[in-house]
């Protein structure tokens, strides 16, 4: 997990807007291979927008997104998944009427892999989330919130990504389940070398998990540093930890 010479994902001066409302006002973020990077901030800070803009929805108005040194700012949304970037979107968005098996298969479908690779990835997902194996034939919509989050992550993993984008994986989950999810992310990072960008409101968990973190306020990055550093900053503690009583 030695950091690569150039970052896996480099975002430079990124601007994006919904109509006239500017959600990103020039964001710079770097993610090195093998890192977990946390992006924290309040509601409406632009965290999810940043994640969506990496996937081209909404399109960037200015700035650059470089992935493995290649400019992907203008790449169509559906092709970004083929570059081995996967996303577990906000609100999980599992396919409710499709079975757990089909949900997972959907992750593998678009990117194209051999049967053996698919099977190996599937077994890896089951090791991480044994719950999914138990629920294999069940419909996605009948799973609990935590299981749906596991499914959303599992589905993203089925495309065998190098970079995994997670949007609020602990949203609406009981603390115990949230910890399981975070443990799984740590395992993925340590054992599989997966690079992770995690957007969270649960700053305490996210910063403990992450190697580095960024703090976003009103579409701008206001603070950056290692996870431990950010956790010690009084303004972070005041804004996200003591007041919120997360974790």
């Amino acid at each position, binding site marked *: 997990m030695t950091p690569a010479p150039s970052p896996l994902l480099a975002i430079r001066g990124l601007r994006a807007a919904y109509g006239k409302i500017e959600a990103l006002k020039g964001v710079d973020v770097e993610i090195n291979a093998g890192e977990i990077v946390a992006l924290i901030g309040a509601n409406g800070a632009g965290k999810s927008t940043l994640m969506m803009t990496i*996937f081209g929805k909404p399109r960037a108005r200015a700035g650059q997104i470089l992935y493995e040194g290649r400019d992907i700012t203008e790449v169509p949304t559906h092709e970004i998944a083929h570059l081995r970037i996967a996303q577990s*979107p906000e609100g999980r968005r599992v*396919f409710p009427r499709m079975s757990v098996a089909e949900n997972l298969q959907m992750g593998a*479908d*678009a990117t194209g892999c051999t049967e053996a690779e698919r*099977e190996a990835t599937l077994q890896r997902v089951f090791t991480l989330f044994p719950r999914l194996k138990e629920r294999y034939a069940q419909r996605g919509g009948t799973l609990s919130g935590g299981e749906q989050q596991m499914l959303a992550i599992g589905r993203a993993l089925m495309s065998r990504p190098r970079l995994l984008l997670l949007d609020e994986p602990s949203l609406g989950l009981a603390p115990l*389940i949230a910890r399981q999810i975070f443990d799984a992310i740590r395992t993925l990072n340590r054992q599989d070398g997966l690079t992770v960008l995690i957007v969270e409101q649960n700053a305490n968990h996210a910063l403990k998990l992450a190697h580095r973190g960024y703090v976003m306020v009103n579409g701008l990055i206001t603070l950056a540093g290692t996870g431990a550093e950010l956790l010690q900053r009084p303004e972070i503690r005041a804004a996200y930890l003591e007041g919120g009583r997360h974790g």
Partner: protein
Amino acid sequence: MTAKPAIGIPAILKTAFVNALVALVLFSLMVGIRTEAGASGQLTYWTRFGDLASLVAAVFGGSIVIELLRQWIGPTGAEKLVPPAVQSGISFIGRYLAPALLIFTLLVPVIFYDQRYILDLAILVLTYVMLGWGLNVVVGLAGLLDLGYVAFYAVGAYSYGLLATNFGWSFWICLPLAGILAAFWGVLLGFPVLRLRGDYLAIVTLAFGEIIRLVIINWQDLTGGPNGVSGIPRPSFFGIPLDNSDDGLAARLGIEYSPTHRIVFLFYLILALALLTNWATIRLRRLPIGRAWEALREDEVACRALGINTTTTKLTAFATGAMFGGFAGAFFATRQGFISPESFTFQESALVLAIVVLGGMGSQLGVALSALAMIGGFELFRSLETYRMLVFGMAMVLIMIWRPRGLIGHRAPTVYLTKAQAISSDLVKEGHG
């Protein structure tokens, strides 16, 4: 009418009274006053308060009975009105129903060989089964509400009708062409509606269906306008005509000619086309494209994040559904021998859509059963002409109450574990949360 369960007699009476009042308002003009044109064209009317009173009284009494029944059954949700035993019975029958139905269908011409009426009806039902299965790809699988499906039916019918009458091309050449042309129109419809969903999509497809019909009516030079296309050749048995001539099929086989031969041939033709539709749909569902259709129905944003090209996915759904509609249209043209715009009204679209929705969106067997019930039911109640629509409306309301997902709401999964793997105990014990 009331949302909370009625408990006492006053509550029941109140509900019944409200219902009776609604009935009084509704029926006072519809039944209470009868108008007619008099001998010299003037308006005459007379009142029928007796009939009105008996109707209102029937509603009043009926409401009381329904309320009492509801209390007797207990305060269950509407869906539980079907007891679990019946539910499991239905699923048991479901496993053997499809093969049994198929075998029966194959034997229909043998059993009812002498009954032309039943054979004709069976062909009609199968045409709608095929249309239902075709629309099922668009509405049931991809979740794109299409109110103009009849347009593709029309494109298929006119493709065959015009190619056959103008160029004398055989049915077997025109059939794939009709499918291709309909698919082309499906893509053409697909492009402008790519960004639309739900109600908005429904409106545009509705308009598209009307546009096709109006073009057919007004493009007199090509389509014959309201006069339609007549003299469309009957299908041949792969080049051998099914008629009374010397080189007809009957003469070649050395059997006596009977007009029923052609009906039986048409029956097996539409059966084959319908089964082709079914087979293709089942196959496609197990392929990535079919799964992508279903995923698109569930969540478009998630689809894009997973690397699915939603544009091509939607267009292929439209094209595939339209192609089957085109095949059915070509069959319709060759069976009727005459087509006119009147056969392709919005009512047809609505009927096919009702078949798909009532059958259970995405369920092949459900669509077949509901086509049988709808088209067969229409014929069955033909003698009760006045009450036919009433029975129909009732049946639809009841189905929507009892089985809101359609007759067969169950959706068979398409992915299984590749190997039968025992779940090891160390995996299971970790299941918390």
